């Protein structure tokens, strides 16, 4: 009796033309009876199998897709050793628990992919909302035929000015305004870049022949405005009513 019959794994002894000479009982439980080892290999894996089996001077290992009784394409780890004209092959099917784990990981991956996209979409929505908030933080209000009020809300940073300067300049020009009052009562903190951008805006308005005034400066605002190297040549007034009287 051949002792390999009782090997606990699928075992094949083959000839140089890959004809199957003996198998273990375990092989017959998993694979259909076959005359040639290549007939057990999936058609798309046959070239790979032939190359693996051709390595006769060393132990060869690799993955093959094989036809089992349960599946026409099972993933199998194959090890081959040749002893002169006989090849000895062990075929270990990839553990099904691995496949289960793979499918769980796959589900998590899908969930993550969805979440990732949802987050990106939300991020874009938030950015859009922020832009809208910035635009709303700098409304342009007509007071009289030649005077407009621009109350600023929130923090005076570069973004606030960048996003609104073009709109303010166009409105000032199109409405033929002479005086524009920038109200700082609603401004929280200032940044150096924000102050520089604001001073640029004021100078651009002055070049256009418009007289800007600034009202409602608080102590912390004064500190920042005074610190900027570019000085403002505009009236500073502490309330809207005073500004209004000055213009009228």
């Amino acid at each position, binding site marked *: 009796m051949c002792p390999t019959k009782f090997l606990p794994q699928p075992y094949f002894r083959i000839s140089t033309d890959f004809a199957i000479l003996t198998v273990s009982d375990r092989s017959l439980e998993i694979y259909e009876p076959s005359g040639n080892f290549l007939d057990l290999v999936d058609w798309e894996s046959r070239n790979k199998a032939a190359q693996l089996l051709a390595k006769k001077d060393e132990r060869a290992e690799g*993955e093959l897709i094989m036809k089992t009784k349960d599946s026409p394409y099972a993933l199998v780890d194959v090890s081959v050793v040749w002893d002169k004209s006989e090849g000895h092959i062990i075929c270990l099917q990839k553990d099904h628990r691995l496949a289960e784990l793979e499918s769980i990981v796959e589900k998590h991956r899908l969930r993550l992919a969805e979440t990732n996209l949802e987050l990106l979409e939300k991020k874009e929505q938030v950015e859009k909302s922020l832009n809208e908030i910035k635009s709303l933080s700098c409304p342009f209000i007509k007071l009289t035929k030649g005077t407009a009020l621009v109350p600023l809300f929130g923090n005076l940073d570069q973004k606030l000015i960048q996003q609104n300067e073009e709109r303010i300049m166009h409105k000032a020009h199109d409405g033929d305004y002479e005086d524009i009052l920038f109200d700082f009562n609603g401004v929280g903190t200032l940044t150096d870049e924000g102050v520089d951008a604001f001073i640029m805006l004021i100078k651009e308005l002055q070049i256009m022949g418009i007289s800007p005034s600034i009202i409602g400066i608080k102590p912390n605002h004064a500190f920042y405005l005074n610190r900027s190297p570019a000085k403002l040549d505009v009236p500073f007034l502490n309330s809207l009513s005073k500004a209004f009287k000055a213009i009228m």
Partner: protein
Amino acid sequence: MHEHGAALAQLLLEGNQDEAWEYINEYRKKGKDSLYIYEHIITAGMGHIGSLWETNKISVADEHLATSTCDFLLARYQMEKKKEQNPSNSKKAMFLCVESEQHYLGIKMASQLFSEAGWTTRFHGPNLPLEYAKKTAVDWQPDVICLSFSILYHAEHLNPYIAELEKLPNRPIVMIGGRLLSHYEFSRYGSKKTIFMKNLEDVRDWIKRHPPGVKSSVSY
């Protein structure tokens, strides 16, 4: 094309999402269209990974990592394209792999070509059994249903899928794709109305001939 294949394959096998993204984004910025990126870079990359497995250089586990990295790449690319594409209109297309089929990257690229052209799309991914496909199609009423398979044994599913889906009340166009179609003939599994796509270029050409804004009774 081979050059792209090997270069991208290496990044995908490392799971290097950021560099893989930079790689395709360079070509996007140079003005290469989605068809070029999908067919000549991504498909070539995944094809190269297949050949690395065939020559025993990598394992199936490596392929899984490359697949999921590639999936992320496609999702990010679509996000980027969404910013420039036209809003989708009334024509709808759904995409799925037949039962047991796990290879979904190809049909994902096809679905992204449709959505880029202004179609409303639903991507159902791998392994969608016929009963779920039918239920979704009855509820959602897509104009086009695209099926994909990559393993020869799954071709046997085509017949029931095509027959059942083509006879739905809204008479959707059923379209078949997959890597084997460029090598073998599968028309015997379909009807006269079924459309078989050999590659993504066929898909792009079909989309060009059927702009989503024009409702048409022509089904091929």
